[in-house]
């Protein structure tokens, strides 16, 4: 294939031997020959015949491409690998388990072409268990929206469309794929739209998710929040903490003085409060210095190479 495709569909797959061929067929049927497209399947360390099946398809159809990772790296890294290998001007991600419908791809792309940087799908009639899936997900989406300030109805829906320029500014690592909209808005000032998409129940293969990820998601959320709010000025985050600790220290210092003022009756109390005061002050100093270390890290990065900066759209007048 010599020409660069307009659209790249990126799908990480992990042990989906029963789903991957129907998936390829449905993508083909949905995209047809209308646009130049490619399908980049990222094999994230499958131990079944997934890779073999995809490789066979790729041999027949030049639009199908397979990237096999050396081991299982997880969804975020697999997606990033797909982005790195994709060539399209527009990228679309979706799950490899047939729960998303490729027929939605043209709809999302059409929406993106209206001038958005990211179009996130949300599952309107979700075909999942209420207690194990829907309720935790509803709560999680509320928390994410509340903390990051980016209100996305369904962060867990993989079906999303992006402009390439956006993905050049957002890099996925660890488990950050869950927070792409929040990261995109925070790091690149992305303009985000939402579209309802279809959702099918899982027919074959196994789900790779469980409730165990709640703690991890909360920790990652804290990271995303920090990145978003304090990306360019981390000293402010730590400075605020340092100030708070110092203020508490001042209060306990007052208590120590008051206890000391009552002389021998409360001498033990004054010592305890003095100790508490020292702890709070030391926390303040520690956080203050940590803020400076964070500044060093940020400015070192700035020297090493400039970020492309936020996305801009030219306004036609």
């Amino acid at each position: 294939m010599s020409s660069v495709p307009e659209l790249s569909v990126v799908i990480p797959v992990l042990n989906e031997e029963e789903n991957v061929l129907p998936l390829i067929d449905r993508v083909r049927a949905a995209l047809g020959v209308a646009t130049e497209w490619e399908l980049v399947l990222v094999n994230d360390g499958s131990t079944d015949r997934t890779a073999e099946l995809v490789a066979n398809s790729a041999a027949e159809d030049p639009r199908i491409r397979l990237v096999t990772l050396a081991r299982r790296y997880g969804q975020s890294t697999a997606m990033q690998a797909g982005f790195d290998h994709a060539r399209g001007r527009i990228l679309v991600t979706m799950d490899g388990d047939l729960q998303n419908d490729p027929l939605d791809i043209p709809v999302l792309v059409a929406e993106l072409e209206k001038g958005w940087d990211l179009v996130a799908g949300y599952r309107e009639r979700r075909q999942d268990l209420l207690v194990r899936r829907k309720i935790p997900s509803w709560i999680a989406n509320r928390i994410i929206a509340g903390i990051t300030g980016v209100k996305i109805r369904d962060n867990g829906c993989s079906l999303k469309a992006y402009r390439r320029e956006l993905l050049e500014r957002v890099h996925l690592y660890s488990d950050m794929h869950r927070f792409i909209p929040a990261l995109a808005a925070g790091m690149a000032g992305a303009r985000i739209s939402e579209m309802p998409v279809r959702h099918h129940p899982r027919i074959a293969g196994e789900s790779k998710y469980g409730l165990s990820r709640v703690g991890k998601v909360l920790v990652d959320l804290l990271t995303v929040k920090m990145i978003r709010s304090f990306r360019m000025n981390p000293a402010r985050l730590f400075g605020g903490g340092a100030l708070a600790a110092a203020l508490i220290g001042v209060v306990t210092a007052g208590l120590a003085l008051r206890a000391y003022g009552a002389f021998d009756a409360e001498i033990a109390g004054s010592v305890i409060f003095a100790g508490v005061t020292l702890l709070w002050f030391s926390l303040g100093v520690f956080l203050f210095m940590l803020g400076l270390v964070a500044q060093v890290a940020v400015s070192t990065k700035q020297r090493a190479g400039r970020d492309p900066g936020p996305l801009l759209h030219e306004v036609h007048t």
Partner: protein
Amino acid sequence: MTPTLRPVFEVETASASHPGAADRPRVSVVVAVTERPSSLDWLYREYSPPIRALGEPFEFVFVVDRWGTELAQSLAELRQEGEPIRVFEAGHGVGESGMLEAVRTHLRGDVVVTLPAYPRVRAEGLAALVRKVDEGVDLATAKRTAIGGSFLGRLQRGAFHLLLRWGIGGSFEDVASGVRAMRREVLDEVPVYGDLVRFLPVLAQREGFRVEEVPVPQHPEDSRPRVYSPGIYVRRIIDLLGLFFMVRFTRKPLRFFGLVGTLLSGIGTLILIVLLLQRIGGQAIADRPLLLLGVLFFVTGVQAIAMGLIGEIIVHLSAGQGRREYRVEESVREKI
């Protein structure tokens, strides 16, 4: 920064007197000499025959410390006889990792064998390792099969690997034997620094390379019982902890620090709540040392979380720069 090397003996361009240098070697045997070794010419005479028996061009590359240069003189005679020996000198204190990193670009073979400067396995084991790499394994590391003798040595090794498996997983039984054969690519793609070279098989496996332990008979010299100073044991444990953290959390530091911090500040908060309730109940708390303890726990927990946040900032800033986070095994229809 990669240390620089000064060649002591380089292989001259192909000449009749140096038949071994005429073709590009396929196997490069690297000996990083960091401790005072057995004599190097003895080492060469002991270990080169099985490599030569593979029937392909090879080279032995010695990297020596400053004081190792005089030891290297013992190799001069062998070189006169046309043996494919190259010797490089590294600055003092570079360490095994640094030596390996520095000599990497000088190696000419597709298969790299690392050999400690003192005998650990029987020579014929080297050939078995190289053959394993030819069969498609990316890194074959020697698992010394003890030939009796040192019970103590085996006990130490067993305990070490129990900790390793417990902390990191995998199935290594003799990860630090130091005798390994690998495809060149492994050395190029797995960054080693500090004392990490000891764990090269673990790190290579992490990068997605196929790693296998191959049973190789232990050298009689190696099976003498050895007791190390307590400092060595402490250092090994710290190495393990470092590796454990590196493998599990370097890309998500807040998961580790956050857990520690939440636990600590949680205990602190609990203590402070109890004290608060007692205060409300009318009890004086100002003279209770427990107050100090509660605040100490809380403050330490906050420090741990703050440390984790710094870690996340560093990870975040480096994302998308330099080396990719993943290794692609194959990609059908590579980027055009």
